[in-house]
């Protein structure tokens, strides 16, 4: 019974530094976590354009992210959705953000900026369909996403 042969001394390691370090790590991960990335389909291979500028959010409060896969389908939170239905519902929501006087004006420009994240291989025909559907519903501001350099993960 070697375990019992001690004089009753218990080893009490000082856990404070470990707890400090763990909390620092938690703080780091909490700060860098980005729940918005859930709306982005990270499996898409975006085109590479060297002059693509980082995102500027000044003045624009509202974004509508549209992921377009290789086949030209609209992917929202990992699910393929019909383009016209989805855009109609989003346009309705965006229209509510307009001043009351402009809400009933069908030609009013919607305050939402459409962010297109399309696969580099998608054809212009499929893409243009999405552009046209957006324009029909009053979206005017578009942002086309691209990588500045090759994605190291691919």
């Amino acid at each position, binding site marked *: 019974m070697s375990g019992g042969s001690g004089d009753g001394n218990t080893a009490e390691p000082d856990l404070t530094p470990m707890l400090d370090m763990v909390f620092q790590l938690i703080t780091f991960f909490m700060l860098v976590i980005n729940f918005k*990335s859930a709306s982005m389909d990270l499996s898409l291979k975006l085109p590479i*354009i060297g002059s693509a500028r980082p995102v500027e959010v000044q003045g624009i409060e509202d974004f509508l992210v549209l992921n377009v896969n290789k086949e030209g389908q609209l992917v929202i939170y990992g699910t393929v959705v019909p383009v016209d239905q989805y855009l109609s519902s989003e346009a309705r929501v965006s229209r509510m953000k307009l001043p009351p006087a402009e809400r009933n004006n069908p030609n009013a420009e919607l305050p939402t900026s459409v962010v297109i994240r399309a696969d580099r291989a998608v054809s212009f025909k499929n893409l243009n369909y999405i552009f046209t559907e957006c324009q029909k519903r009053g979206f005017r501001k*578009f942002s086309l996403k691209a*990588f500045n350099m090759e994605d*190291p993960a691919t």
Partner: protein
Amino acid sequence: MSRRHRRKKKRGSEEVKLNMAAMLDMAFQLLTFFILTFRPSPIEGQIDLNLPPPVAVAQMRPIQKVDQGDSTGASLPGFGTLVITVHASDDGELSSLVLGERPLLRGKMRPNDAAALDRELQNIFQLSGGTFDAIQLHIDPKLNYETFLTLMDVCARQKTEDGKKIEKLSFIELKPK
């Protein structure tokens, strides 16, 4: 005095022991969650465009004269739209690019081609004497997004003679042959 002193001494000798193990367990669980869900996303840039619905435009004829620096040759009044026609091969790559009526690029787009197009457009907009203030791309439906975006990027960078950015940028889909 002495009683208070005695009481203080007694309290000081009591050690409050916090059980850190439970807090550490929870902290490690949180840490594990954040580590497992952490996925650094690559840095994405963007090209901003203001795109009203496109309208049909008449193609301006004297582009060759304008392109050669003959600003007096641009006899058309007012502003105009420069039309760029882009054809694609079956695999979606660029097959030809026509600037106005003049063929500029042929075959798959190479890295230098974007710079060549940029130079041509700069010449046109600098030397046209304000003839052009808009660009319209007529694009083959088969063209892939990467080439399309490269062309849009070059067009969006153009400036008029007085240094203002070209804001009227639009595109329409060519009818398949």
